[in-house]
């Protein structure tokens, strides 16, 4: 029966692959384990091993074509076997399904007949050896009486090629000594063997510690990977003169502390300004869900808080409707809750925009990864006293803070992102405006 070579899934997120190059040509004899073609995924180029020996009867997709994972990309037949090319493989599959649907009894008979012809005459010992070595007995050349495959034939088959070409290539690239891979006498070293050897070498290294990717770390890993894969990020950075914001903070701090018992922080002012800007630019407060852009009414600002075991993002709901004292109180409570591990799902769900501030760690400028399904994230740097040339061409030292906005380009274009970021800058430089 013809063997269908499928587009392999070379990673958990791979959904399609590009055929870069067919190493074998149509009509050529191919051996299991030989390189068959080169595939490009979203990450790497890989040589794919031939999954079956026989004749490469048909190449279904040509070089340069993008093919979904699981689709038939080539047909391999046995030597001398007829292959009826009745169209694209998908069509063949559909036809097959029709037949099974219609006359079930008939196809079952057919199946039996097929497996009958597929049976190979081989001694139990040959079959056992083939089984133990993961060899398809059909690939072995029989020399026994009446075309029977005997044990010796399997041993010969194994001895013929001890290392698959792909295994050899990987071993060369990674500097793996093939003689260190022990296989049962006569067995072929395959790609898997070399890869597991590489793994083994890793574990043999001293001074490494293996921590299972689990719990919050796993969730963060998955979310961040998803974000980077799904959302095309672009980044906008500008400098904000924080002179007035600092002044405001100093002016209000004492009053707010009296009122709430909590000190006002610059972060609270940044939250307020971002909330205000979001109200004016609602596309920044949106997400993509099922082919729709969902624009959210509520402005819920998430605050990235670093903890030892990972990152949490508690949310200040309706930040646009809250005054600075309220924001200050709420954010300080949320941070305390986060650090003591007492956040409830309600505290960290439903965010529409996130602010990440690494200023306290001395970071002047950085690019944050969007917290999906949100469409943007604001990265806040440290306030640095910087020489600035003012509008009168005079050199002055000003407290400058850099803001970097990461935007999901599926929703937000550069100009929109820039306007939004500039609005935050305006608000921070003239905080009185926030009162309007």
């Amino acid at each position, binding site marked *: 029966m013809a063997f269908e070579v499928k587009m392999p899934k070379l990673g958990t997120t791979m959904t399609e692959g590009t055929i870069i190059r067919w190493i074998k040509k149509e009509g050529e004899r191919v051996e299991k384990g030989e390189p068959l073609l080169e595939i490009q995924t979203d990450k790497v180029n890989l040589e794919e091993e031939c999954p079956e020996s026989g004749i490469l009867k048909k190449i279904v997709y040509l070089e340069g074509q993008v093919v979904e994972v699981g689709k038939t990309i080539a047909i391999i037949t046995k030597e001398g076997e007829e292959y009826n090319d009745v169209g694209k493989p998908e069509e063949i599959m559909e036809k097959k399904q029709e037949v099974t649907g219609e006359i079930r009894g008939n196809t079952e008979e057919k199946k039996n007949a097929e497996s009958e012809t597929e049976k190979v005459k081989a*001694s*139990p*010992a040959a079959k056992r050896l083939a089984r133990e070595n993961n060899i398809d007995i059909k690939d072995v050349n029989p020399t026994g009486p009446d075309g029977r495959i*005997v044990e010796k034939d399997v041993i010969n088959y194994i001895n013929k090629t001890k290392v698959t070409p792909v295994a050899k290539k990987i071993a060369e690239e990674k500097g793996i000594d093939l003689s260190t891979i022990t296989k049962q006498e006569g067995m072929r070293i395959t790609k898997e063997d070399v890869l597991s050897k590489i793994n083994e070498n890793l574990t043999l290294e001293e001074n490494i510690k293996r921590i299972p990717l689990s719990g919050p770390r796993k969730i963060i890993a998955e979310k961040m990977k998803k974000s980077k894969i799904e959302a095309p990020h672009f980044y906008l950075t500008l400098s904000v003169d924080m002179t007035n914001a600092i002044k405001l903070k100093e002016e209000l701090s004492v009053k707010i502390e009296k009122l709430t018992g909590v000190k006002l922080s610059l972060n609270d002012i940044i939250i307020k300004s971002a909330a205000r800007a979001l109200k004016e630019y609602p596309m920044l407060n949106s997400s993509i869900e099922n082919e729709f852009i969902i624009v959210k009414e509520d402005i819920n600002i998430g605050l990235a808080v670093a903890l030892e075991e990972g990152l949490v993002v508690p949310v200040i709901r309706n930040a646009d409707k809250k005054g600075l004292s309220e924001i200050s109180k709420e954010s300080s409570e949320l941070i305390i809750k986060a650090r003591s591990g007492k956040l409830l799902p309600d505290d960290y769900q439903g965010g529409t925009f996130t602010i990440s501030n690494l200023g306290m760690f001395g970071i002047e400028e950085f690019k944050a990864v969007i917290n999906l399904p949100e469409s943007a994230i604001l990265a806040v740097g440290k306030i640095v006293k910087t020489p600035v040339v003012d509008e009168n061409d005079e050199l002055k030292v000003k407290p400058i803070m850099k803001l970097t906005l990461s935007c999901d380009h599926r929703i937000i274009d550069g100009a929109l992102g820039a306007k939004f970021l500039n609005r935050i800058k305006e608000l921070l430089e003239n905080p009185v405006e926030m009162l309007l």
Partner: protein
Amino acid sequence: MAEKLYIEALREGLREEMLRDSSVFLIGEDIGVYGGAFGVTKGLVQEFGEKRVIDTPISETAITGIGVGAALCGMRPVVEIMFSDFTTLAMEQLVNQGAKIRYMFGGKAKVPMVLRTPMGSGTGAAAQHSQSFPAVFAHFPGLKVVMPSTPYDVKGLIKAAIRDDNPVVFFEHKLLYRVKGEVPEGDYVLPLGKADIKRKGNDVTIIAGSIMVIKALEAAKELEKEGIDVEIIDPVTIKPLDMETIVKSVKKTGRVLIVEDDPKSFGWGAEVAAGIVESEAFDYLDAPVKRLAGRDIPIPYNPNLERHAVPQIEDILKGVKQILR
């Protein structure tokens, strides 16, 4: 170690057991002064007297019946049936009584009897004197069946058979009586139910019984010249059958030739073959199990035809080469 004939070793075994245990006695046609049809018991009547070496008229039923009865009464009779073909006359006594008594009496009665009998073709004794019946008796529950192939084995095994508390049918191939081999002096007993590796090898396992062991050993010498390394297993006792030794050998070589003296259909070779296929050795087989056995015919009188009725050395050579193809 002294070389002795099979017949001498057998007689030595019988004599030593008679000396050792006064309840052992021999009974059969012409076994006294005449010394038995093949001379196995020669001289024993002179040494032990007519009460312990009893000559009887021609009645296999009576002889075997006496054996079963005496055994029940605490004696250890060794019954001789002149030709194994005649055991059919003693079927009722041996099979329907002797083999069943211990079971039917809930173990309270036992039948420590040996029925010795020469078997096989090759002597021009024609159809009524040339059959081999081990498989026939192996089929009956309650009987043990032994067919020693060498002088060493026959002495050790006749002692074991006599000392066993159950009826044992002891087959001696007529052509083996004149075979010579090393036999240690004095008392030694070989276990019943234990196969013997008569030759170690790696390429093919020959499982041969009785006279066929000798033929297989000859064939192995020839095959060795061609670089074929044969292992020969002698089951020795076919009931109980030592499959463990056989399976171990087959796992090593992956190829099996079974050589037996009796007709192929439903023979003990079929039992061995089935046992191999049923066992873990199946996965080690590299060729179908092959059986060489007698033809399904009465043994002819004509010497040329008689020769062709059972496997010969050249058949074994051919058989081995066939499965090694």
